[in-house]
């Protein structure tokens, strides 16, 4: 294992220390239990958004804390759900009296821990709503599995619902908006290489040099199939087709196209994927009206990409374009 780390056990704490030193204008970092909150939290009268999950997906979620996006993020150990005490303290720290929305990616651990935290917070008199993100079309059989995973759409949901909360919308309205986004967004990812969890010290799965895994999750969970490597255009097709046909996205739809790096894939390659994805979508009469390109929901150093499509409307466009000021996403200010 070759990594820029000290003791593998200290990776998350040391990262948080760096975040605290780098962005004191945006966030405050709390330790034991660990969480990141907006520097100006709690914002009185505003619905607060709390998310969280295992570490190793940076900039998600900690990098999305700030004006126009999340109010708090709870980082777990690498690829491990955070614990209810973190979520409870974060929820209390951001509650500005208008309620708190938990944005939860659909993983067994995340769902269980957030469920317990929401119960504890309600017990302390805080109004909490939870929304589950499960946009990964790679999981075909959701009856006999833990269900579809929450992946790329999480980033878009956090941005858009964050803007809605900033605008002063109610907890119910924010939760409904989040559910609408979940209903009209879909993702699929692929990996060229595996990744190594620091405290494990060896790759999460073995992927030979000439093979790729289509439909990968963000923790190296396997996808639909493992096949020989293909050129970027062909890979892009393998991701776009299942995403489009699942919803399905139709002729005349206007979409946001999000091309994400799993961490190890450089921008130069993401733009190649983007160009092909736009071509494929246009051929179907689907219009790309907004885009996001870059490493936003990563899987440590894994090489690979994911594609997310979200069907847009006037309201979503306005909220997407609204100002955001976080370490990981910033515009309109």
């Amino acid at each position: 294992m070759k990594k820029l780390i000290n003791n593998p056990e200290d990776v998350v704490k040391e990262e948080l220390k760096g975040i605290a030193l780098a962005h004191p204008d945006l966030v405050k970092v709390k330790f034991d239990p660990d969480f990141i909150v907006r520097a100006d939290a709690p914002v009185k009268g505003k619905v607060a958004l709390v998310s969280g999950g295992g570490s190793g997906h940076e900039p998600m979620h900690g990098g999305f804390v700030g004006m126009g996006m999340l109010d708090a993020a709870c980082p777990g150990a690498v690829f491990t759900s955070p614990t209810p005490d973190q979520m409870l303290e974060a929820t209390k720290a951001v509650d500005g009296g208008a309620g708190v929305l938990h944005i939860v990616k659909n993983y067994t651990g995340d769902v269980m821990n957030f469920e317990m935290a929401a119960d504890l917070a309600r017990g302390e008199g805080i109004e909490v709503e939870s929304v589950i993100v499960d946009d990964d079309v790679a999981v075909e059989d959701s009856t006999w599995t833990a269900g579809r995973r929450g992946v790329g759409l999480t980033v878009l949901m956090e941005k858009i619902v964050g803007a809605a909360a900033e605008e002063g919308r109610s907890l119910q309205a924010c939760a409904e908006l989040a559910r609408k986004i979940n209903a009209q967004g879909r993702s699929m990812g692929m990996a060229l290489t595996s990744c190594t969890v620091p405290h494990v010290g060896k790759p999460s799965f073995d992927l030979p040099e000439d093979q790729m895994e289509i439909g990968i999750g963000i923790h190296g969970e396997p996808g639909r199939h493992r096949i020989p490597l293909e050129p970027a255009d062909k890979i892009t097709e393998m991701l776009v087709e299942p995403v489009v046909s699942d919803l399905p996205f139709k002729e005349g739809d206007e979409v946001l196209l999000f091309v994400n790096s799993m961490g190890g894939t450089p921008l130069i390659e993401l733009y190649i994927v983007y160009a092909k994805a736009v071509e494929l979508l246009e051929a179907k009469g689907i219009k790309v009206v907004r885009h996001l390109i870059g490493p936003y929901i990563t899987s440590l150093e894994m090489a690979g990409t994911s594609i997310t499509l979200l069907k847009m409307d006037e309201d979503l466009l306005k909220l997407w374009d609204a100002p955001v000021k976080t370490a990981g996403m910033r515009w309109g200010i």
Partner: protein
Amino acid sequence: MAILRDDVLNWVRDYAQVIEDNHEMLTELDRVIGDADHGANMRRGFKAVMEKLPSVEDKDIGTILKTVGMTLLSKVGGAGGPLYSTLFMKAGMSLGAKMEMDVNDWAKALEAGILGVATLGKAQLNDKTMLDALYPALDALKAAIADGASTGNALKKSAEAAHAGMLATIPLIAHKGRASYLGERSAGHQDPGATSTTLLLESVAKTWMDC
């Protein structure tokens, strides 16, 4: 014979050592069909339990087990955190203020813990989870008690049934947790959760052998 509070403390200490000795094996099982964190998470949790234990050593069995559960909840994370936490907390609630118990009390406590795990995890037998070790262990324990077995023998039978249940997870296709995404590829691998719960019940049988 009775299972005393000190026996319960010794069991928790023994299991913490078992986790310390086996965390790499558990993580390796999880690496193959999950997300390679089960051993590391349990190790972090039981290290914290060992730090916390001295503060409740003079309390009743229920308090001790609930404290173990609360500590695991805040330290383990993942799905294992809430599930193990529930197992210990529900067992602790069932035992309440007892300073000693008999094997019937233990069977009831285990049953309460297992019910908690099943409710929270929404898993069924043969979903390739910790329940595949826990259910057979409970059935064997009850059957041994009904047959008039000694405490030591009943616990041994229970641990053996857990072990058999753990091995029986190997051919199963996972329907819960991260392993479920593998579908048929999860078959042929032993479930990490069923493994750590088997170690837990083996630790019980070993520590309470002469009770």
